């Protein structure tokens, strides 16, 4: 399935360029962090690679067919999307869609509910939970099928420190279990904690893709330097 290649990817809306052209190669291991200021095109790039957005130009290539690759991916959105169902039903949903037996799906849902500390709330309506709990469900639901590739769009943007830490722990665990993670964030601290490599996006263009250490030691562009120093990036 890997490496994933984005080749001359471009997205335009009404002839206005949102991102691109972007060329990117993402290898299998570790957590890749897509870093950039608000409006730099992080969400658009993630959605484009995952297939939620139609490309205006270019292509996304996996080493297997795109349809097979699609079955091995999951996506966690910035605002968690909860089905109007219970916590257990939300967690088991991707398994149910794949026609996994109900008993297996229920067992897996219970395991993941425990992992995210929601076993007591398994029968509650998911939409009635807090933002942090909903995001934890969204992450668990994405990981329940053991995807080979997980995209996350600023999953902890509006969460408190403890919830952020809990979700980061789940992601580190998933990564060590073989799930490739590509996550966008504008939180530099989070990037430092999680990243193996950093993709820095500025005005819809990838300005750098290198190891975290290299990125932090030698910011590859003016915008990257400003971002690292906490200045406003225009």
């Amino acid at each position: 399935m890997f490496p994933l290649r984005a080749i001359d990817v471009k997205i335009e809306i009404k002839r206005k360029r949102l991102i691109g052209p972007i060329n990117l190669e993402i290898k299998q291991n570790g957590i890749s962090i897509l870093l950039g200021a608000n409006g730099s095109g992080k969400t658009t790039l993630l959605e484009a690679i995952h297939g939620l957005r139609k490309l205006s130009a270019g292509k996304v290539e996996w080493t297997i067919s795109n349809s097979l690759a699609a079955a091995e991916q999951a996506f966690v959105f910035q605002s968690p999307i909860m089905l109007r169902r219970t916590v257990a039903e939300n967690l088991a949903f991707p398994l149910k869609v794949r026609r996994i037996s109900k008993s297996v799906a229920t067992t897996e849902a219970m395991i993941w509910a425990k992992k995210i500390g929601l076993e007591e709330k398994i029968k509650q309506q998911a939409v009635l939970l807090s933002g942090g709990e909903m995001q934890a469900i969204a992450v668990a639901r994405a990981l329940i099928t053991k995807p080979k590739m997980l995209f996350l769009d600023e999953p902890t943007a509006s969460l408190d420190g403890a919830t952020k830490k809990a979700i980061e722990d789940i992601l580190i665990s998933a990564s060590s279990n073989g799930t490739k993670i590509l996550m966008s964030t504008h939180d530099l601290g989070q990037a430092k904690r999680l990243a193996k490599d950093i993709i820095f996006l500025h005005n819809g263009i990838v300005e750098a893709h290198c190891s975290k250490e290299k990125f932090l030691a030698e910011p590859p562009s003016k915008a990257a330097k400003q971002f690292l120093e906490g200045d406003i990036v225009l």
Partner: protein
Amino acid sequence: MNEISQGLIQAFWLVLSFDSELITISLRSLYVTLTALTISTLIAFPLAAFLAVTHFQFRQAIIATLNALMGLPPVVVGLIVYIIFSRSGPLGVLGLLYTTSAMIIAQVIIITPLVTSIAHQSMQELWADYRNLLISINVSKMQSVGILMWDSKKALITASLAGFGRGIGEVGAIMIVGGNIDNATRVLTTAISLETSRGDFALALALGFVLISLAISVSFATHWFGKTERGGLQ
């Protein structure tokens, strides 16, 4: 006022005495409307979900037409069904005119656009919430239709009740195609019309009260079994 109180007393008396004609007419009303509603929902719900999840060339035109047909004049529907099933009509050979089957067909034509439009409205909103999630976990269009119908079930109950209300209170079309034949096609609304024309306002009012009670009872029963008002969730 005197006629209203007389009507109420007579309605109570008719109900308490288990008046056989009243029971027969009421059951026929329920049979015609519930059968028409069942057929309508079998058409309307999947159609509404399909219109919510798909994009094709004439989709907007179909939605606009369905919305316009919500106000379809029953008398015109009755006239068209009458012409189709009259002896010289294209389906006259079926011999359905002046039968409950013709009444059901007329009601299906009247109810379906209403139920479809209401169901589509709620499923379109749900699709806006669910779209990205369902696409990201590779849910097929057919599966999406099922998921939308399942998760909109309470809104669909409301749509069904709106259809039931329109059907049970309908008189113009079923009078034309049913003929208000005693012991054959007479239902509550056509009986009320007949008694009013005869000048027996008390009996007409009594039948009217029974009709209203029937509509309210079905609504209450549906809400009760459907649990639509529990938990404050739609």
